[in-house]
């Protein structure tokens, strides 16, 4: 009984909003007003953050390694693009949700394929699904516009009130609000008993099954939710750039996404958000140094991260904040290392 209450108490404690989290979102909000000339790249970061959040749900919490997460991003992107292009649903928010739903349906259907087999099979199946969709999009170029992409997308004002402007201000705040709402939802999910059972599955599927967790059902559920998130990220991409082309399905997109998440750290939700900021900064930095060959340095960063070890790297990064917090608050390890990477 005592163990149970202990576990319950620590779970509740973890679920509470910490000082650091509130500060994080305040900083984000301040950034939105301090850099008014940077809306385009900040929108990009927000989109990427949402996409990474989606991968974190399945990789960080459920331990599913996916190499084809761009599949859902692409479905969301094309969904939103087609809806707007043919004037089926002109209101962006509803179109966003519908496009997300489309990705969600695909996620639900493919989840049955993904939960079978071990890591390697999962890698291959997720990669295969993304490639399959890319091939399909290329095949039916009369619908998708082929390599040129969907052209002439015109977005209607959000809720009929806020028109998308040239500088991307509306687009940025729109994306940021979507990210924040979905983040709240994700936070609720991962701190619920459902989320805790996912962590149990990630740490040991056999043991989780033995204590009565329906492993496959839980994995299907979280995979479906993650697909919804990725679809929303894709739809945001189309809506804020008025563009959708074949490269939304590209392997590089899925691979970059992994790097984003790994930079930020898996399994504590903020990893994707921090990773997105750092990744985009790195990319900007590298492309100003070598416009054509920035991929080399991105690759080097990946290799170094893996060789140094992800857990060790995060300890180094968190050493200073922890020291400061320990000195000020007299507590130990206020900012914790994300527990057990996938």
């Amino acid at each position, binding site marked *: 009984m005592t163990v149970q209450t202990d576990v319950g108490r620590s779970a509740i404690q973890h679920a509470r909003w910490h000082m650091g989290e509130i500060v994080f979102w305040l900083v984000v909000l301040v950034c939105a007003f301090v850099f008014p000339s940077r809306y385009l790249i900040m929108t990009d970061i927000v989109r990427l953050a949402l996409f990474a959040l989606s991968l974190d749900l399945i990789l960080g919490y459920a331990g599913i390694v996916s190499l084809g997460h761009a599949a859902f991003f692409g479905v969301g992107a094309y969904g939103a693009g087609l809806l707007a292009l043919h004037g089926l649903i002109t209101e962006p928010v509803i179109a966003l949700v519908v496009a997300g739903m489309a990705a969600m349906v695909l996620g639900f259907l493919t989840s049955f394929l993904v939960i079978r087999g071990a890591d*390697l099979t999962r890698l291959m199946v997720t990669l295969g699904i993304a490639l399959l969709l890319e091939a399909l999009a290329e095949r039916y170029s009369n619908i998708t516009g082929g390599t040129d992409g969907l052209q002439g997308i015109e977005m209607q004002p959000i809720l009929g009130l806020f028109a998308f402007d040239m500088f991307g201000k509306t687009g940025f705040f729109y994306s940021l609000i979507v990210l924040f709402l979905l983040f709240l939802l994700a936070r609720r999910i991962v701190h619920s008993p459902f989320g805790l059972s996912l962590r149990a599955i990630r740490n040991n599927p056999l043991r989780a099954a033995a204590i009565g967790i329906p492993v496959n059902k839980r994995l299907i559920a979280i995979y479906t939710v993650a697909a919804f998130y990725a679809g929303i990220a894709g739809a945001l991409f189309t809506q804020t750039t008025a563009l959708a082309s074949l490269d939304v399905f590209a392997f590089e997109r899925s691979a970059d996404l992994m790097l984003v998440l790994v930079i930020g750290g898996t399994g504590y939700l903020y990893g994707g958000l921090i990773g997105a900021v750092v990744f985009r900064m790195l990319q900007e930095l590298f492309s100003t140094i070598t416009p054509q060959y920035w991929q080399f340095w991105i690759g080097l960063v*990946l290799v170094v991260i893996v060789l140094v070890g992800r857990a060790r790297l995060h300890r180094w990064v968190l050493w200073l904040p922890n020291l400061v917090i320990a000195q000020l608050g007299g507590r130990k390890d206020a900012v914790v290392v994300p527990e057990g990477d*996938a």
Partner: protein
Amino acid sequence: MTSVLTNLFDGVAYGMLLFVLACGLAVTLGLMNFVNLAHGAFAMAGGYVCAVLVNRSGWPFFAGLPLAFISAALIGALLERLLYRHLYTRSHLDQVLFSVGLVFMSVAAVDYIMGSSRVFINIPSVLEGQFDVFGVGIGRYRLMIIVICGVLTALLQLILARTRFGSRLRAAVDDPRAASGLGINVPQVFAFTFAFGCGLAGLGGALSAEILGLDPYFPLKFMIYFLIVVTVGGSSSITGPFLASLLLGIADVAGKYYVPKMGPFVIYTVMIVILIWRPNGLFGRVAAR
């Protein structure tokens, strides 16, 4: 009818080539359980070495091929000793990240050094064109590929099954602890095998410049093909990957010929179906490692 046979012939040549390219991966991924997505990078290295030697330094084509093998094997051995061996025991996620990083680096590096356009290797005039056997068009270059790859496959099978090194490798793969207890230097066996696999990939890369096309994006474009060969073929013997690559080669050529627009679609669908149906590969053993 004759076009069917010609396609079959081309498919077999393509499949043989895929086997030589991918059989190194069959060992690292299938036997050592290391997810190496960067295998194509070694093939590309071999291909470019051969291209530089033949086109710029004027070496004969048949002298460039062994050099492609040796250089790719050396690069493989170097990387294995420096980097790869630290990652054998890591999670699959780490291995994926690491090898994707290597792919990105190799793509950008080759783009920087050699330029981004497709590279052709000057092949001797003996190998150009095709001749007819009972009305079936046989490409000389493809015939050479079939001969070379066929001989290599037979050699590999012999080495694995009959030599002392082959039995050491099989022992090291089946149970590394017991094997090292018997005095087998397991890391050395793995390093040698890894380098040899990279060498074969390099040779395959040099041979494939004519058929698959050689450009800096080679590792990304064909990564999925190598993975298909290994995962569909299974890892119990080299027969599995061999049959899988023949199937893949024939299916791909036929797909491109008869249903030009649905080609890749068919391949990926078949791959997913097979993986769902038999997660350990078509010819894999049932026991999961």
